[in-house]
């Protein structure tokens, strides 16, 4: 990847950014006075304490709890991997949740993300009304998923919903949200509706940062517009590609609010996140069991987090 692909101000910044010399760096560290160190200690300390106490600490605690059968009141009792075995063998919603999560992920990655990229490419051409188009595609992103879930009901409702009316099926209505065989697809439509705008805005920013001279050079070499896009533009946007990929994965795993708003994530709309919440917050209060589900979710997420971090570190080293 080229250095600083030319966004707005980058032109001004690159030229002046000399190679960071080791001695200069050392000098700067040495220059920290006692007052500087106090400021650093207090503010970095505050941020670190918050992050460790409220994010990393609970993560470790959850992993520990997943090996117990705690219900919130009882004493902690170690049960080994029993929770995990139960999840796999005697907990039917788990299979459905995994299937739905995988479906969710695949749909976002293979349908919604490419569509968002396509919109970004079309809108990157300095065309008229571009602000209107951008706002329209981005609008669902600023809506809370709870509202998206509710709007989905207006569209999909069996008896009064707009979709059945549009399809002319008032007399033989399809129960888009109630039929466990199809409701996941209906909800995916709503989730994708939102995801496309998200991806579009990220790529729009990424495309603006691609050096136009690269495209011109490719055009001079006789590459078609499509070739230029796939061989030149897309590869130079690698940092954005990674961000989009990770966001897609995270959205796929975090999906929660939208199904929760529709039917609390039951009857065909089971998701891992919903099962975790249901076991922990629900009346049964099966905290050990819920934590084990959470850890499974965590392990899946970790795979992608590590990929992301490797990318960050590689950039950081440059």
């Amino acid at each position, binding site marked *: *990847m080229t250095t*600083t692909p030319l966004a*707005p*101000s980058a032109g*001004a910044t690159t030229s002046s950014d000399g190679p960071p010399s080791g001695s200069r760096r050392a000098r*700067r*560290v040495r*220059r*920290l*006075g006692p*007052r500087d160190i106090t*400021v*650093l200690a207090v*503010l970095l300390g505050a*941020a*670190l304490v918050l992050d460790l106490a*409220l*994010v990393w*600490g*609970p993560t470790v605690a*959850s992993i520990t*709890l997943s090996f117990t059968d705690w219900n919130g009141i009882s004493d902690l009792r170690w049960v080994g991997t029993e929770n995990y075995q139960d999840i796999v063998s005697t907990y039917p919603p788990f299979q459905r949740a995994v299937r739905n999560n995988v479906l969710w992920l695949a749909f976002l990655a293979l349908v919604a993300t490419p569509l968002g990229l396509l919109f970004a490419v079309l*809108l990157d*051409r*300095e*065309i008229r009304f571009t*602000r209107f*188009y*951008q706002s329209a595609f981005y*609008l669902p992103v600023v*809506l*809370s998923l*709870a*509202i998206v879930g*509710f*709007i989905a009901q*207006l569209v999909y409702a069996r008896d009064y*919903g*707009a979709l059945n009316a549009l399809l002319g099926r*008032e007399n033989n209505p399809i129960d888009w949200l109630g039929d466990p065989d199809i409701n996941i697809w209906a909800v995916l439509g709503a989730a994708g509706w939102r995801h496309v*705008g998200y991806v579009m805005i990220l790529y729009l*920013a*990424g495309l*603006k940062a691609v050096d*136009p001279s690269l495209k011109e050079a490719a055009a001079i070499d006789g590459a078609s517009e499509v070739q230029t896009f796939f061989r030149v533009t897309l590869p130079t946007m690698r*940092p954005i590609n990674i961000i989009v990929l990770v966001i897609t994965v*995270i959205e796929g795993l975090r999906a929660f609010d939208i199904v*929760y708003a529709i039917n609390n994530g039951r009857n065909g709309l089971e998701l891992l*996140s919903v099962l*975790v*919440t249901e076991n*922990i917050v629900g009346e049964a209060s099966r905290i050990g069991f819920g934590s084990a589900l959470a850890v499974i*979710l*965590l392990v899946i*997420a970790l795979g992608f*987090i590590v990929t*992301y*971090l490797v990318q960050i*570190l590689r*950039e950081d080293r440059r």
Partner: protein
Amino acid sequence: MTAVTSTSPATPPSTTGASGVSSAQRRKRRITPARIALHIVLMTAALGWLAPVLLAVYASLRPYADTAAHGYLSWPERLTFDYYIQVWQDAELPRYFFNTLIVTVPAVIIILFLASFVAYAIARVRLPGARVLLVLFTAGNLLPPQVLITPLYVLYNKLPLPWWISDSMSLYDSYLGLIAIHVAFQLGFCVFVLANYMRQIPTEITEAALVDGAGLWKRYLTVTLPLARPALAALATLEFTWIYNDFLWALVLMSSGDKLPITSALNNLRGQFFTDYNLLAAGAVLVALPTIIVFNLLQKQFIAGLTLGANKG
């Protein structure tokens, strides 16, 4: 310095560079069939994208009896604002708006302040272990929130607070607790974006401040922070939207109905046995309005700030 500040919010279109603009203008003048086709495709897609939202607005203006008889996709018998009045008064919407703001505004300010300082320390001070810090914060933001639920719930119940901070006497069910988790969870993302952004600021500027003998705090506050304004604007928009829309943390860490944020309050409009979806639609429109307004006001800064933060290559 002027070179960098000139990219600030006000002037993003100029940024494509002279050649980009002129070729774009040339293109714009030529009306080709391809252009028309492009507009037809985009217009169709955009209207399709807006349709569900417009449907919600439309539903909110019609009495329940009307839509119950004819469905949501039908000509109206009459349009009224009755539901809006009803939501505003019966559902005590102003109070829930206040609940959301009392959490969202301080959270966004604290996040941006702490994250910008941490990013500054990572990107400009070159502390030993800066990379580990960056990874720690960024990875934290990527964890699924459900993993944190139980221990946080227990921790929040065990942490006592004096009554004048929280009437529940603990961090659980307090505004402070919600603010704290939002700050902790969102820090990572902001640190990541801001650290990338700050690295692009030429070192000469901070060097100059160093010669003047300015301390670390002063260099951060008066030199680096103002230069990072576009990225801060983009993050402020994003974070405002995310925290405003949060549903999960309030569900898990709050219990008093009268302290719930606006997104959860929407559920109060659902009846036990009967839900008037048109009323709910009016509620949803009112709840969504602030984020739509914020985005449209900051749209230009948003994209400009995102561009700069993302393109660290």
